[in-house]
């Protein structure tokens, strides 16, 4: 595949509309959806495509997110290419069935407009909802902006079906889902060809070859099924990279497990994902101009966690700040815990500070990130979690 032959179209879309645009090009067979802020722009935009006859998709307007994911399980098990979307409380309500979807190895694609969890209720951006689902056996891919949402939706659909596992493509609620950005989209037929046909081996509507989905597996077999699932999850890492690289060749946009931004010779490194990574890159650029050796690692693939690769990329830095838009009440947040275990395995004793920012849509500014780098440079690193931009 070469980029030269692919006509590129520039278009201004919100992150939500970018997801819907990618879906328009993929044209899933079944989409089971329920409204929730800030996810609704995705399903509204797609419903309009349907209303205008641009796509041939069975949209099921279910009565809850629980039923959205349940119907998705049914549709996917039936053999259909299946998509759903949600946020926050909706994802939490789906939680029970997330495990079933992955246990049954159903390649459902879910768009998540990540948002804070109640209580108190808050509709704004955060990663708490998707972090809550991180052990559910779903591949999780974070997106920084509308362009990445578009790209990851296409990569995610193909990955789900190749890996035989469900995939979540994540964008930050509002800051990405509702912000209009310029992006580059591919032609529909190029996307269709890239994603390919979905051809499951076993499915309910293969009526002459009846199968049973969802049996009872007890002490003598359940364990092995779970171990098998972990193996599939582990194997999906390579699959992700392969598909991401193919997409890179197609689009000309670099894709990898994570983005290393001026990290090679950096002393002070920030780890971050989502919308705030964009601001953080500006800060790196600015500080680099002043001769400061700062760099950034932006996580794209979070589950399965590319631990060795991330640790490999960090091996020469002096200090690390892990900036997370999620709180794990009672312990460190997920990135921190995962990276710390990786560093430990590689016997890298790099001082690492946990920061939490942006909960419930709290703004984060360039100066906040600059301060993080400054603190790192001054070795202000402790075991205590530091909260950015709180009033207390």
């Amino acid at each position, binding site marked *: 595949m070469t980029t030269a032959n692919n006509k590129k179209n520039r278009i201004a879309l919100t992150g939500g509309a970018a997801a819907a645009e990618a879906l328009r090009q993929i044209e899933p*067979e*079944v989409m*089971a959806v329920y409204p929730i802020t800030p996810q609704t722009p995705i399903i509204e935009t797609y419903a309009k495509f349907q209303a205008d006859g641009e796509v*041939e*998709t*069975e949209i*099921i*307007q*279910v*009565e*809850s997110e*629980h*039923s*959205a994911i*349940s*119907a*998705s*399980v*049914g*549709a*996917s*098990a*039936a*053999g*259909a290419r*299946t998509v759903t979307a949600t946020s926050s409380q909706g994802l939490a309500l789906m939680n*029970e*069935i997330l495990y*079933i979807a992955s246990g049954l190895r159903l390649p459902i694609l879910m768009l998540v407009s990540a948002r804070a969890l109640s209580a108190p209720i808050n509709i704004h951006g955060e990663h708490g909802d998707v972090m809550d689902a991180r052990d559910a056996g779903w591949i999780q891919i974070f997106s920084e902006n509308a362009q990445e949402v578009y790209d990851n939706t296409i990569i995610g659909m193909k990955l789900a079906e190749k890996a035989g596992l469900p995939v979540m493509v994540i964008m930050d609620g509002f800051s990405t889902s509702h912000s209009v950005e310029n992006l580059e989209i591919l032609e529909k037929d190029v996307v269709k060809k890239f994603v390919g046909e979905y051809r499951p081996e076993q499915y*309910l*509507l*293969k*009526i002459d070859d*009846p*199968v*049973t*989905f*969802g*049996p*009872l*597996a*007890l002490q003598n*077999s359940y364990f092995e099924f779970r171990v098998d699932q972990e193996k599939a999850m582990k194997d999906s890492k390579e699959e992700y990279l392969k598909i991401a690289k193919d997409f890179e060749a197609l689009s000309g946009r670099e894709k990898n497990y994570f983005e290393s931004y001026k990290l090679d010779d950096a002393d002070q490194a920030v780890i971050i994902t989502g919308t705030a990574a964009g601001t953080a890159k500006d800060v790196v650029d600015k500080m680099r101009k002043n001769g400061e050796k700062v760099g950034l690692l932006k996580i794209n693939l979070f589950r399965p966690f590319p631990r060795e690769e991330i640790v490999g990329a960090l091996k020469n830095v002096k200090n690390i700040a892990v900036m997370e838009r999620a709180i794990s009440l009672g312990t460190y947040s997920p990135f921190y815990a995962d990276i710390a275990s990786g560093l430990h395995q590689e016997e890298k004793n790099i001082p690492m500070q946990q920061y939490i920012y942006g909960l419930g849509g709290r703004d984060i500014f360039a100066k906040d990130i600059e301060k993080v780098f400054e603190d790192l440079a001054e070795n202000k690193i402790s075991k205590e979690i530091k909260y950015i931009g709180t009033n207390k």
Partner: protein
Amino acid sequence: MNEELAKNFAPGHSACAGCAFPAIIRAVLGESQDPVVVANATGCMEVTSTLYPYTAWKTPYIHNAFENASATMSGVERAYKIFQKKGKIDKKIKFVVFGGDGGTYDIGLQSLSGALERGHNFLYVLYDNEAYMNTGNQRSSATPYGANTETTPVGKKSFGKDQKRKDLMAIVAAHHVKYAAQANVAYLADLKRKAKKALETEGPTFLNVFSPCTNNWKFPTSQYVRLARTATETNYWPLFEIEDGNYKINMTIENPKPIEEFLKGQGRFKHLFSEKNKHVIEEMQKITNENWERLVRLSK
């Protein structure tokens, strides 16, 4: 093995000796001229028929969770629809959900309601054994007034459950489904006729089938048919159907037996046959009479 009878649902399942639901499965699925895809809510039927590595199901089958069999089937049915549109499938296929009363009256009610309202083309078969039997006999909203269950235990200050069962048929009817019926495993000809009618009706249809539980109602394993018949003969479980909103009674019992006839063979009602609980039986008779009279009114 009776090959014809076992064509959709084979033996080798581990339902209790004398369980009623296998006969319901076979009677209902036997009425389909087309292949059937089954979705099943968590419950006795699901755990006993799919114990890995064996499945008793010879027809495509999916168990997702407890409360979402209807939503799951919504997805299957829409997948079928788009496959048809795209020419990926040409066979006619029927879709049947099986759920117990816990999975239907209680935890699965929202999912059922959504699927009925959306108008999916499927038949929902409720096998009603009037409590959570898979978990060992806890009360559900289908449990009758006066029943002794593990969560409505009889005690010094308790005669068992002190609420009436929910009128699920009325709830289903309120969704304007074209066909819903109440049936009983003891009356297989009636059940089969209703299943056939339901399967031939476009859109969502519903059957509530009485399904005695030997283990938790505490009666001998040989008695499920006898007991189920008594339920209809006492007017406790009338046979009726609701077609386009119109109620029709399918069997009128000339001289209904007193409710005691239904209660007496069952351990879950044993405590009622004492002087101090006489009023409970009287109340049960009253509830039964009122339900019947209401049904007669609706059928006019």
